[in-house]
């Protein structure tokens, strides 16, 4: 019922406002015709000077440039290899994944590496021992 009354209210409103709506549309129509005449002549002039009217405006060009840069940045991020060097300790530089620290310069890295090697060798020894026993 409320929706029906609201619709009837809109009907009243359109009766009252219709002259203003028609006036507004007429003003826009006159504006459209003036714009047409002006831009038709300017597009003709542009055509003979070898330019196009449909070229992007400055803001769109700027936007396209930014989006292109963003796309390139994203592609670079995607194409980078996965971090192959495990991150050890706080001193290990995490900024660049392609950075391989020279051996012997980072004490923490070397210590942990040695510890890992030690663990691996002990594991190897154990398996070897098992193997030996089996033999």
């Amino acid at each position, binding site marked *: 019922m409320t929706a029906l009354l609201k619709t009837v209210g809109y009907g*009243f409103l359109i009766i009252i406002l219709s002259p203003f709506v028609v006036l507004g549309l007429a003003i826009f129509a006159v504006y*459209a015709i003036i714009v047409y005449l002006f*831009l038709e002549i300017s597009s003709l002039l542009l055509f003979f000077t070898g330019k196009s009217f449909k070229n992007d405006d400055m803001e769109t060009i700027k*936007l396209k440039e930014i989006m292109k840069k963003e796309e390139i940045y994203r592609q670079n991020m995607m194409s980078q290899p996965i971090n192959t060097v495990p991150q050890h300790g706080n001193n290990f530089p995490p900024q660049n994944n392609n950075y391989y620290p020279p051996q012997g310069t980072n004490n923490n890295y070397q210590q942990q590496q040695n510890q890992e090697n030690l663990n691996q060798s002990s594991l190897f020894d154990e398996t070897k021992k098992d193997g030996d026993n089996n033999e």
Partner: protein
Amino acid sequence: MNNLLIYLPLLVQLNEKEKKAIGIIAIILLGILLLLGLIARLLLSIKDRKGREIDNYMYDLVSYKIITTPFQFRSYVFKRETKKLYLNNRWALRVFILMAIALIIYVSTFLSGDWNTIWKILDDLFLEIEWPTTKMFGLTIISDWPFIKTPPVIYLTLNGYVTYVAFIISLWCGLNLIGTCFSFSAKIDRSNKVSSKAFGKNLDNMGGNNRGFQ
């Protein structure tokens, strides 16, 4: 107020037929208002949909901070939509101008500049209807369905064809112009409404409740 009170005894003394007539008139008026209301609602929804078309290109421009002020926002929309207005209207107006030139040449050459022939053909294209009326409470009001006074006449001659083609082209051009102007006004209206909201600090959008332009 005293003038209105004069009619009060009249309302009391109404017979059944007159009461029925008043009821029918009230229902017809309500129906007309309802129909107009539905048309208004439809136009408003179309306006809203057309206005939202600016969001497609303005969202990126605002989010990448290429446009930073409400004034820039409005002026950019106006500039871009003016260009679009030209692009949407150009072929209709070109055809209309060519048609008008051709019609002027035709009338001045074959009809010796007699435009009355063209206007008569156009006038006869539409049927003429007459509404039967009756006097009630001192007012002349419609009492029955209308009847056709003069039926439409179609001229299958060269003058007729030229007139009909010119009329159809003018109608198409006019409708196209009204449609594009309506769309243009809807977009300008939306840009005026949204421009301040797009850059204003709104606490409603804090805490991840970003609902975009409302």
